[in-house]
């Protein structure tokens, strides 16, 4: 399924991504990184569509996005 990877060291806990995620599946985690920021985490990986809205708004390029989509053959054969 599609998912995002959070670089917890680069994340500064600004949480802009949590606002712009259309499915609201990003939220502050309970851990701290070495700079004392609370990195964000993906709360429900199953819902992520890989739309990358979070990555677009991240000022620190802390989010890498992987999108899983049906291959063309799967699309045509249903």
């Amino acid at each position, binding site marked *: 399924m599609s998912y995002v990877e959070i670089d917890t060291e680069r994340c500064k806990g600004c*949480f802009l991504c949590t606002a712009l995620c259309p499915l609201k599946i990003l939220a502050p985690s309970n851990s701290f990184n070495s700079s004392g920021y609370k990195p964000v985490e993906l709360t429900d990986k199953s819902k992520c569509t890989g739309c990358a809205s979070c990555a677009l708004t*991240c000022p620190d390029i802390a989010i890498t*996005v992987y999108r899983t989509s049906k291959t063309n053959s799967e699309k045509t054969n249903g």
Partner: protein
Amino acid sequence: MEEKLVFTRPECVVDRATHYCPGCQHGVAHRLIGEVLDEMQLADKSILVSSIGCSVFLYNYLHIDAVEAPHGRAPAVATGVKRARPDNFVFTYQGDGDLASIGMAEIMHCANRGENLSVIFVNNTVYGMTGGQMAPTTLEGQKTTTSPRGRDVLHDGNAIRMAEIIAQLEGTSYSTRVALDTVLHIKQTKKAIKKAFTLQNEKKGFGFVEILATCPTNWKMSSLDANERIAKELIPYFPLGTYKDIEQGAK
């Protein structure tokens, strides 16, 4: 099922943490520039002219040649670079204090001469690096460290709308204002940067992109509230849109 990497660090953006405050949208603007430089394969012929302000360190975050300009003088330094090496890709990256205050004469005349270079102007309505003083784009009533009771237009004048002013100059080929507060706006910003860079690359003259951005620390707001302020307060006073585009009938 096929898994694809759809979003990662642009090649010409340095893989390191930035010095910016959490939620500061300079980081987004930097990344968009990196993406466009990569897509247009301009990085290895680019020369950045960085200005004085929080964004002076952009040269630490891009794998391109750069020169540091004195406060406000980036458009003049860029003119010198471009006149000396016309085949290089030259752009400045400036804040509102740098461009619209001390550097006003330089940006006006650089645009008016129609210099074949691009200017990225990040407007976050305060002097960031020096601790949040009033800037030429500070809004009426906005509290800053030098307008503690809120900007009083009778005493301090009104905020200056640069994209419209630059659009009035004959030498300007493209002048637009964009923002970074929504996914749509971020995509528009990238398109605007690409448009300005393409104009330069095709020797079609001076491109100006004003980017509305947040400064959570000096606005004394959370990153999320600051981001909302863009739509609530900045965009109403600084309308988004293209004010001049020699390739189309602009607004």
